[in-house]
């Protein structure tokens, strides 16, 4: 037997030195050694004295005299004895330590050698545990960055977001709101507002679109960050009439301004206007200032009406401030402000409110984070259970070998240590792989995770990661090392020796392995159910009818430089010319403009009041997507006119004299929602909370399109005529492959206006795919983990059943010899295995019923207890488990009873 090759290990060094120390030592191992050191010193010294006495007697002294003289010559005997003993004991200890290390290295070497002899087992354990460990760590890094770590600003817990609370919506502030807040608030230490704007930046002949954040002067001081070079905005910069200034983001400064300090004080041309650069920010760390090329100063002028609501507000509370008082002040301010704007704003129920800035920025990712972390954590756990199971099997089949070792004098601790060394090697391999997987996962999350998760740029390999990985590694080693190790070394060793040919495992091992396999199935079942739910949800999302043919549609966006196109008539001329030129391009079937796009790009939401069904006092007005479109829009997307007429070029965006909206189109969902059972055409409404404006008439009803996201219900959309405006989406229906005309389209736009590039060019199909990216990758992630869990569970049950048949060869043979049929045998084996599986699946379903309720928000059109998902997941597990049990069952059926029994 090859395993006896390693027997030399167990001639442990301790055993070598002290032949008498025995197989079962009652005393600690150093006890005898210490005694022997003392005895040795005594023996050596007394020999010396005896020889000296003999010499003195030979010289003529009496024995008594000789003894006295010898002792006198020797000097301080007791002190010397003590000194020598201590020296020897220290030496023993040092050697012992060196030997322990040597033993350990030897264990390790032998562990590696014997693992290399079982490469499939080793690889399975290292790969599965390593993957589980690494993936858990990677996901944890994202969760930690988003949820656990404070925002990278000064005293981040004092920062709040202020907004208009109109459940279920949270609206931003308007200029009027913010100015009123600034003048009257007393409970906030600092505050600022910002809004994002894309501006075109003239860079030589070409223009490009920059992402800028327009901020009130106190923005950076609220956050507690300062420019790296130059100065921060000051109060004077924010006053209307002061020359506008800008601060550059760090990467913009490096890439476009050549990282030159003398860029400060120079003008930057944006949208045709000049901004003086006054500072450069340090490399950005936080979610509020990352990604921006430039920060522009906001200068407020008194607003003519309350809306629009484009301004996000942040504020810093004084240290230890009472949040309830601050919220109370916000409410009171809003109540006082409300009557002033009554003519142009009406929503009694809306109020000002605030929340912790981090909570606001991070949003509702708790469910997603919990699900992802739970899934990977479970895979790690199932991998450990599987490893434990495989190692118990390995240990059980080597029990005889271990028993021989024990009989030859190895103590239980020694055998356990040897087995643990093997586990330590496996754990080290898994950790090495896990660190790699975690690192790769973190890179991936940093690069791609921003679509799914907030604050992914802040993912770091920090101390908490090291602690987590260390914790996981140690738990892994204990789970798959200690359990089989204790099992192997428990019970009397000589029973294993005596039992001869049949490898004795004992009922304990069988029970342990069965429980482990049942646990594996109990973990895999909820994972598979969740995967099934997510896949069903994704499938339903894919089947959602967007309301139009998404093929052969190309979109892009154009922004005109504001300074050159401040004149409305010039803007209108420009858009007309653009439409004509694009229409003339080969391959273009039709072109339209809009300020919002399906499937998830609503330009605006607006509230309105119906003439026929006015909103009662104290109630909120209805709010729906509000999309401005050019007359060709309906034809370009391929919508159908249900009733009435389409908006045409004769419908102006706003009546020039009255500044009012005269006619709108609505979609079928809107008509059904507000005028069920009657025609919406001809009905009138007032929008934006205005109570004195002329009425707006609904002139037509068209089919529905999704604007607020594929997973959102059709709540109705209002279409208004699009006439002016400096920013528009271009929607082109092509005759062939849409991307093939992308460059000629861009060329046409550039020829007409070099300062207004066509950007964000994409096909409608890709936009739809993008909007499905999050549910798609989540279901992919969970499904792949569920499949791993399924595979591991199958390995587990296969191993246990194969072993079961192996152990019951004799019993099965006797049954067959006594006339049992092959189907009896199959029933015995399958029944045994499927009991274990069945218990696991049942527990797993119970767990899933409790757990999936928590993820309802991630599901679309699928109940958290969707029976089909539960059934299909359960059936899949059951079917695969039957297959895994069938192989050993088949082997048992083909036994030749006579042969087996003769060999016994």
């Amino acid at each position: 037997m090859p395993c006896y090759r390693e027997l030399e290990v167990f001639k442990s060094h301790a055993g070598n030195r002290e032949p008498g120390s025995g197989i079962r030592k009652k005393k600690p191992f150093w006890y005898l050694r210490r005694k022997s050191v003392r005895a040795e010193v005594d023996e050596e010294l007394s020999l010396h004295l005896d020889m000296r006495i003999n010499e003195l007697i030979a010289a003529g002294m009496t024995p008594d005299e000789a003894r006295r003289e010898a002792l006198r010559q020797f000097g301080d005997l007791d002190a010397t004895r003590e000194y020598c003993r201590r020296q020897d004991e220290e030496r023993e200890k040092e050697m012992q330590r060196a030997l322990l290390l040597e033993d350990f290295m030897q264990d390790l070497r032998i562990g590696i050698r014997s693992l290399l002899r079982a490469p499939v087992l080793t690889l399975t354990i290292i790969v599965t545990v390593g993957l589980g460990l690494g993936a858990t760590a990677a996901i944890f890094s994202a969760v930690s960055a988003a949820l656990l770590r404070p925002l990278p600003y000064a005293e981040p817990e004092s920062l709040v977001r202020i907004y208009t609370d109109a459940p279920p919506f949270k609206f931003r502030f308007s200029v009027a709101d913010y100015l009123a807040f600034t003048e009257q608030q007393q409970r906030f230490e600092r505050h600022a507002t910002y809004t994002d704007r894309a501006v075109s930046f003239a860079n030589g002949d070409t223009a490009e679109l920059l992402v800028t954040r327009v901020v009130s002067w106190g923005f950076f001081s609220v956050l507690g960050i300062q420019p790296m070079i130059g100065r921060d905005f000051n109060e004077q910069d924010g006053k209307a009439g002061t020359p506008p200034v800008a601060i550059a983001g760090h990467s913009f400064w490096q890439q476009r301004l050549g990282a030159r300090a003398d860029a400060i004080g120079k003008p930057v041309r944006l949208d045709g206007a000049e901004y003086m650069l006054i500072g450069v920010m340090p490399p950005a760390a936080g979610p509020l200032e990352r990604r921006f090329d430039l920060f522009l100063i906001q200068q407020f002028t008194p607003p003519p009406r309350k809306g629009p609501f484009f301004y996000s507000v942040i504020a810093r509370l004084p240290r230890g401030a009472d949040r309830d008082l601050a919220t109370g002040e916000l409410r009171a301010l809003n109540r006082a402000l409300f009557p002033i704007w009554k003519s142009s704003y009406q929503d009694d129920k809306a109020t000002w409110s605030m929340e912790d800035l981090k909570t606001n920025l991070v949003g509702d990712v708790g469910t997603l984070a919990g699900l992802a972390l739970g899934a990977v954590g479970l895979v790690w756990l199932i991998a450990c259970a599987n490893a434990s199971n495989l190692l118990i099997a390995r240990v059980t089949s080597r029990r005889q070998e271990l028993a021989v070792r024990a009989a030859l004098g190895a103590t239980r601790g020694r055998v356990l240590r040897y087995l643990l060394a093997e586990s330590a090697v496996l754990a080290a391999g898994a950790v090495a792989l896990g660190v790699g997987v975690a690192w790769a996962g973190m890179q991936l999350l940093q690069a791609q995770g921003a679509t799914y998760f907030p604050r992914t740029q802040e993912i770091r390999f920090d101390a908490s990661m090291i602690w987590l990985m260390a914790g996981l590694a140690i738990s892994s080693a204990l789970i798959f090392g200690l359990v089989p190790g204790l099992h192997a070394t428990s019970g009397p060793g000589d029973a294993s020796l005596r039992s001869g040919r049949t490898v004795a495992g004992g009922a304990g091992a069988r029970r342990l392995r069965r429980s482990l396999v049942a646990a594996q199935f109990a973990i895999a079942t909820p994972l598979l159910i969740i995967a099934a739910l997510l896949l069903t949800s994704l499938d339903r999302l894919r089947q959602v009818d967007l309301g139009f043919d998404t093929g052969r549609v190309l979109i892009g966006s154009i922004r005109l430089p504001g300074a050159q196109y401040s004149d409305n008539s010039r803007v209108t001329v420009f858009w007309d010319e653009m439409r004509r030129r694009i229409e003339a391009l080969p391959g273009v079937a039709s072109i339209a403009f809009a300020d919002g796009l399906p499937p998830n790009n609503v330009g605006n939401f607006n509230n309105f009041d119906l003439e026929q069904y006015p909103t009662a006092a104290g109630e909120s007005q209805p709010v729906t997507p509000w999309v401005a479109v050019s007359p060709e829009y309906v034809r370009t997307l391929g919508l159908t006119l249900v009733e009435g007429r389409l908006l045409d070029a004769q419908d102006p965006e706003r009546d020039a004299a009255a500044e009012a909206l005269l006619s709108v189109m609505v979609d079928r969902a809107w008509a059904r929602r507000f005028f069920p059972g009657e025609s919406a055409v001809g009905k009138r409404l007032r929008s934006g909370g205005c109570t004195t404006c002329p009425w707006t008439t609904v002139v037509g009803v068209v089919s529905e399109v999704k604007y607020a996201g594929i997973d959102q219900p059709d709540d109705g959309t209002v279409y208004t005529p699009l006439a002016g405006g400096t920013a528009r989406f271009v929607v082109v229906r092509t005759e062939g492959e849409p991307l093939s005309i992308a460059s000629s389209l861009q060329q046409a736009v550039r020829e007409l206006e070099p300062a207004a590039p066509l950007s964000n060019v994409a096909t409608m199909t890709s936009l739809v795919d993008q909007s499905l990216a999050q549910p798609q990758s989540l279901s992919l992630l969970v499904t792949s983990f569920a499949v791993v869990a399924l595979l591991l569970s199958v390995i587990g049950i296969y191993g246990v059943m194969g072993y079961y048949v192996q152990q019951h060869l004799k019993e099965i043979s006797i049954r067959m010899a006594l006339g049992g049929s092959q189907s009896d045998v199959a029933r015995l084996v399958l029944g045994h295995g499927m009991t274990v599986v069945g218990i696991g699946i049942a527990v797993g379903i119970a767990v899933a019923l409790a757990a999936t309720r928590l993820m309802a928000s991630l599901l679309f059109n699928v109940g958290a207890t969707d029976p089909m998902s539960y059934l299909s997941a359960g059936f899949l597990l059951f079917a695969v488990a039957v297959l895994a049990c069938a192989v050993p069952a088949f082997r048992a059926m083909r036994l030749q009873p006579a042969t087996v029994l003769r060999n016994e």
Partner: protein
Amino acid sequence: MATNPLTLLQGTLDLLVLRCLASGPQHGYAIATIVREQTSGDISVEDAALYQALHRLHRQDLVDAEWGPSENNRRARFYTLTPAGRKRLREETANWRRYVRAVDAVLQGA
């Protein structure tokens, strides 16, 4: 620490012990005898200090200890120089010679 009557001579004693072992394994009694005979009693080495030196050198791995039969057939502890001990003996001998020459030069000059 035990009181050591020859603290000042410790280094010298170690050197003497190492030198006694240079020609082959010896037990403690034999070393004491050699030291006494070769110094003709000029230096009196206490047996206590000698044994302490032996065990100290053993701990430092400069000498090896092994039990073996003595002349009168009792178990005796025989000490041998280790390679490290041999090296130390060479170094210490050279040091001692330099020391003596230096002191001697001063004494003769005076």
